[in-house]
């Protein structure tokens, strides 16, 4: 949440459209699917939509912080699959679910920190680092499984992370809500969080102001890794298994959510609340297109066009100086 007015210059109309896009877009797709599909507007579907989108939400929150720094993480989808596979295998080997979850969380944070460390210390664009990690994670997931999915038998795990309710709400929704509030508080109310805005907007000035720029970047990638691991837990519970390439559209969807939320890919401007709206829009789109039996390949085309639209709007709004 930035209190600072972002990129104040630039054509007013484009800025208005950019800022309203996540809200108007969300409202638009909800109205569209409500009118088009009799199955869309009911509580059961809504609950399913929310539970199904928990994975995307968590990853999108992390991606917001990564993009805020002007970086990108392309490895998230592959790492979610890999961690889900490892989770399933640890449980298959007889370990209890708490141990498996803890191990996967630690591993996720480690992979994230590694992404950050390679980017920062190797002075390599995060685009390339995470592209490499994506390939490695995908490869490992296939190597570990022999390309088949590993079923998760632990009943308590499956119940807790998918079906269970607490305070009358599905557990995945609760996890998303708590994570959202935690991320919001981190960005808005901690020294490190405030510093991220400065690092993203002008890393040189931030460094000269005593901000440990490299440490902040590694930290954000590590947080992203933790969120990816949590996403892997929820994803494994929902699918009841760990399998390679289990979330093929996740990376695309997460980046799309952040961009629809009006973030600048050059860093310095991003908003969690608007990412939440962007992610909800993608989630509704995913859900609605399935209900309407839209061909899966066509779904990609629709989402790709929405991303490009959002990016063009962002450039126009920030007054893409000629």
């Amino acid at each position, binding site marked *: 949440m*930035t*209190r*600072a*007015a*972002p*990129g*104040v*210059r630039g054509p007013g109309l484009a800025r208005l459209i950019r800022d309203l896009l996540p809200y108007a877009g969300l409202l638009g797709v909800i109205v569209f699917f409500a009118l088009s599909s009799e199955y869309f507007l009911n509580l059961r579907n809504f609950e399913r939509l929310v539970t199904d989108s928990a994975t995307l939400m968590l990853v999108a929150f992390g991606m917001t912080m990564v993009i805020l720094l002007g970086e990108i993480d392309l490895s998230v989808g592959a790492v979610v699959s890999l961690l889900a596979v490892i989770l399933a295998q640890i449980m298959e080997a007889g370990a209890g679910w708490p141990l498996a979850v803890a191990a996967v969380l630690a591993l996720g944070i480690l992979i994230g920190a590694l992404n950050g460390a390679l980017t920062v210390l190797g002075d390599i664009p995060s685009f390339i680092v995470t592209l490499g990690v994506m390939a490695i994670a995908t490869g490992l997931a296939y190597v570990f499984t022999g390309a088949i999915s590993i079923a998760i038998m632990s009943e308590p795990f499956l119940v807790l992370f998918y079906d269970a309710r607490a305070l009358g709400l599905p557990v995945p929704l609760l996890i998303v809500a708590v994570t959202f509030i935690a991320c919001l508080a981190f960005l*808005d*109310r*901690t*020294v*490190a969080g*405030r*510093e991220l*805005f*400065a690092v993203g*907007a*002008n890393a*040189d*000035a*931030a*460094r*000269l*102001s*005593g*901000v*440990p720029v490299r440490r902040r970047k590694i930290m954000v990638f590590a947080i992203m890794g933790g969120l990816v691991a949590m996403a892997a837990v929820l994803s494994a519970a929902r699918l009841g298994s760990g399998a390679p390439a289990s979330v093929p559209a996740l990376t695309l969807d997460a980046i799309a959510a952040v961009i629809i939320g009006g973030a600048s890919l050059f860093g*310095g*401007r991003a908003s969690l609340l608007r990412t939440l709206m962007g992610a909800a829009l993608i989630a509704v789109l995913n859900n609605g297109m399935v209900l309407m039996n839209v061909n899966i390949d066509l779904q990609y085309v629709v989402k790709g066009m929405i991303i490009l639209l959002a990016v063009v709007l962002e450039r126009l709004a920030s007054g893409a100086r000629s």
Partner: protein
Amino acid sequence: MPGWRKVPRVLLELSHITKRFPGVLALDDARFALAAGEVHALMGENGAGKSTLMKIASGLFQPDAGEIRIDGRAVRLSGPASAKAAGIHTVFQELTVLPNRSVAENLMIGREPVRAGGLWLDRGALIRAAQRILDDLGIPLEATAPAGRLSTGQRQMVEIARASAQIPRVLILDEPTSSLGRAEEELLFSLVRRLSERGVGIIYITHRMSEVFALSDRITVLRDGRYVLSGATADLDRTALIRAMVGRDVAEDRHGTADDDLPVVLEVERLARGTAVRGASLSLKAGEVLGMAGLMGAGRTELARLIAGIDRPDSGGMTLFGKPYAPAGIGEALARGVAYASEDRKRLGLVLPLSVADNIALPSLRRLAPLGVIGPNRIAGFARDWMERLGVRAAGPGVAVDTLSGGNQQKVALAKWLATAPRVILLDEPTRGVDVGAKAEIYALIRQLATDGAAILAISSELPELLQISDRIAVMAQGRVAGILPAETATEESLLDLSFTEAAETAA
């Protein structure tokens, strides 16, 4: 025609040149004339308009008014290409040698020998042609050597050779020796002489007096964008040049009084880093403004960065409040009470898209929130307080800094550092790009900070400004502190004279 050699043929003539940038009149009816075969030094203080004039001569800038004549014919240099076509070549300070290519490829870029109707590059011919150019100019380089391995000086040679190969009529060298070693300098001088003997007119911008006298035939001096004098080098001496460069009546009011009894806060001893800072020593006293003068490239900013913990010195040491001080980073310098406000407000000083509050609080966040948690209201309140103290005019602390005027931005850039409660304050060009009113306010602020007991180092390229705000003025030249004068008795002339101190003189 007897004695025709005696009358220099005017090759390039710039007359009545005026160039205005937003807020600055960079050139005001300036003129300059260059004869064939002469080495003509162009001199002046920082901001006198030398570089602007040369950028006009090389087609990079268009003059707002004035005339350019080549061989007596009026021309319009619409861009670098048209200047080159007219035979005017320029070697700027920023080198354009491609490090991943060989010397030969760099030399022949755009003019590579080809075969088969332009499809094939003739590598053999390329290397032979390049080597011929190098040998002809007496440059000891292998055409096949990768340019990436060359020293800065050698790259400069390649640049000059590239220009020479295109048979220039005028060659402009902008501070060519600023990064050269002794041997390379000699080589450059003989290269310059060789080219002038061939009839090339050479315009030489430099800050080194000794070079001017050793190398040039004529000298032109600019001041505040205006032409001051032009004459044969043999008829001029150092004093005359410095008087010409300063030449204003100085009757500004001065506040400064050097006081020997003030306690020394920071002692800098023989600090050195690379070629920019070569053993600089000075001391800052509590309650005193030490001004710092020097020409571009004298190493003032680089020295300030060492004191501020941004860069690490190669050698030398510092003492702060009687204890050894060798900051490992900006964080440590800040914690010890040393703050540095950069000269480059937009790139290094402020985070423009963020709010005034976020900018002011940024370096203080850790001190304000030892546990790492801080609310937006606290940040806004903290910032509002500092906005009031410095008189920042903005709608509120939540306003983005890039919507403010230059003067108000500068106040925010100062506020952010003053808010860290520093005891040593390093101000680098504190009034750059600021209007007259804001300037006066910033001067008053600097004096007030000193009165409150801070030790202040104020770097400025405007001598009247230094005379007005400082108690003592240190002058840097070629990476060393060439001298420190009490502001009461210093004059622009005495400061500029020290600015032209050369390495051999300070080393003694």
